[in-house]
């Protein structure tokens, strides 16, 4: 009973920022989540239900006897999104592309987080020379055009590996490491001065414990916004790599590569080979961005409408606690406008 009620209290507590956020933000988040969920379903269930695979150009009509799929057939009942020059079914490739995009996105973001977050924690907590070196290196990576870096890394990796999901994810993900690093580091800088951290230190807690239990859970809340916005960016970067021919090995279904293959079709009036993969990229990236933007409104109280937030928080002691948290990012970074809350990301196209 008690566990249930504490769980309920915890959930209510976790949900409270959403309640306080403006209606628009909530609507944004839910529309975004619906889109993302739809693509997850397409990737997981769609592949089971739909009869053509992305790289399939013929069907087995009798044992050992194959019949080619039609070439460049307009959307029809048999092929709802049409077929390509290589006799692939476009819908089948959209589904395959969704599987690939989600897998690469997940790996890339996880990779960046696993490296960026601990480095940020240690760098912010220890300070000193290590911190200065790491900050400079991360700034250098952050300043570098992200698509160019992704191209170079994927290019470099092809010297060692077959291009595949993992190498694509590495190329896409490296670019995000500095973002986690910065947010976590700056946040750690302020949290480590808090009395509870000092208390833990005075009680003789090990650095690992302090970082892992006390600091980590206080700084980790700034991660979800970056995470979703990076996920959106990862889809775009993967598609860009694919478009340029540095993505995964053809003919693996990949939306950007499919658009590049469709360039010659477009001028002769064949629209379906380029249209659908483009729409797939736009909708999935929009969905992820909506979630990120909405979360940002929810988590960053400075962006909440004055009226809405004021009313909801009025009388609660929370307000005092909420504002400094947003102000915790270090001042220099705020002044330089490089606080990676990322509604401000720089575009590299």
């Amino acid at each position, binding site marked *: 009973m008690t566990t249930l009620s504490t769980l309920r209290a915890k959930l209510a507590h976790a949900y409270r920022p959403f309640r306080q956020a403006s209606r628009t933000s909530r609507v944004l988040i839910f529309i975004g989540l619906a889109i993302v969920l739809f693509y997850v379903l397409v990737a997981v269930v769609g592949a089971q239900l739909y009869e053509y695979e992305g790289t399939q150009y013929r069907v087995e009509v009798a044992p050992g006897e194959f019949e080619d799929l039609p070439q460049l057939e307009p959307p029809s009942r048999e092929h709802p999104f049409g077929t390509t020059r290589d006799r692939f079914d476009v819908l089948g490739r959209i589904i395959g592309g969704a599987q690939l995009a989600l897998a690469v996105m997940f790996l890339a973001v996880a990779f960046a987080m696993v490296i960026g977050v601990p480095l940020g924690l240690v760098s912010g907590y220890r300070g000193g020379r290590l911190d200065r070196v790491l900050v400079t290196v991360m700034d*250098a990576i952050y300043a570098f*055009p992200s698509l160019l870096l992704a191209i170079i890394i994927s290019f470099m990796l092809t010297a060692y590996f077959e291009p595949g999901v993992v190498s694509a994810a590495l190329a896409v993900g490296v670019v995000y490491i500095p973002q986690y690093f910065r947010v976590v580091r700056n946040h750690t800088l302020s949290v480590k001065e808090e009395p509870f951290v000092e208390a833990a230190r005075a009680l003789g807690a090990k650095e690992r414990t302090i970082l892992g239990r006390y600091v980590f859970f206080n700084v980790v809340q700034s991660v979800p916004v970056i995470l979703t916005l990076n996920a959106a960016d990862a889809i775009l970067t993967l598609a*860009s790599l694919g478009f340029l021919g540095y993505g995964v090995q053809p003919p693996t279904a990949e939306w950007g590569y499919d658009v590049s293959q469709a360039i010659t079709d477009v001028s002769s009036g064949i629209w379906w080979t380029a249209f659908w993969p483009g729409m797939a990229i736009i909708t999935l990236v929009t969905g992820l961005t909506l979630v990120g*933007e909405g979360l940002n409104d929810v988590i960053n109280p400075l962006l909440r409408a004055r009226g809405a937030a004021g009313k909801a928080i009025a009388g609660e002691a929370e307000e005092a606690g909420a504002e400094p948290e947003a102000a915790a990012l270090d001042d220099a970074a705020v002044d330089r406008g490089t606080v990676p809350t990322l509604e401000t990301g*720089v575009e590299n*196209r």
Partner: protein
Amino acid sequence: MKGSSLRRYLLVRVALTVPMVLILLTLVFLLLRVAPGDPIKATVGARLSPEQIAERREALGLNDPILVQYGRYMAGALTGDFGDPVTDRRSVGQIIADTAPATFELAVFAMVVAVIVGVVVGALAGRLRDTPFDVGGRLFGIVIYAAPIFWLGLLAQLTFAVNLRWFPTAGRASGFDAPEEITGFYILDSIITRDWAALATTLHHLVLPGVTLGLVIGGVFVRLVRVNMLQTLRADYVEAARARGVAEGRVLFRHAFKNALVPIVTIMGLQFAILLGGAILTETVFSWPGLGAAIVGFIGSRDYSAVQGIVTFIAIVIAVVSLLIDVINGFVDPRVRY
């Protein structure tokens, strides 16, 4: 007092840029010289005899110890010598001189479009928060950000070049249309030579790639300007200005926008710096003969030396432009100084 804090700020900024450039160049060296292996074998290796390969290696200095190569690379990069490609007779410096003007013109044109779109829509969306205009502006920002630019470019080419025939499909002005080359900057060249037909053609070619790229970046700027406006519009001095009866337009642009400028100018400046490094996708789609297209070409022929040289140049440009932005911010806004 004021002078000393500004001087201190400038000194610190310059001092911070130096290690950043060194680290960037080292990263480039590691990624493009050390990691991928032999640039000769990767490109022309199959077509040459072992003796010829050895000769080329010697000529490019690839037989020296890696540390010697590193020292030579750093010294060259800092004195403006970016090395030689394997697959092109020109030096990397010459290639940059040939392609950078095209990239520069595209970058400036796109920035103008992006800044106009971003500032106007973003400021109004911030002011009209949660109205249909705000929601529309935000949605525009999000959806255009989500659209892959190569796809938008294709769409623009199909609509405005193939179907409507308003603009050329791709490329810069060429052949008889192009101005006589003096600087390589076509706009500048056609003005110098008073060749107004060439100027018109140059601008005509710029419209499609420039507007496409500008709109996409403008979408990001809309969000940037909006968020910063929201924060300054809540400030007490804005309320005070309103209370004094200052006209709303003036409140919006003189009081709120001006104070939101530092982060906005910073990001816009960084964006411009990155554009100067070549809009890889835009240049590829529109066959725009700039730095980005050159890099893609050299990566395609696996010419590590050329890629390394061009990327080095881009890294230096970015570091210098970010330094300039910080310096400008330091002059404009005393809050930025230490």
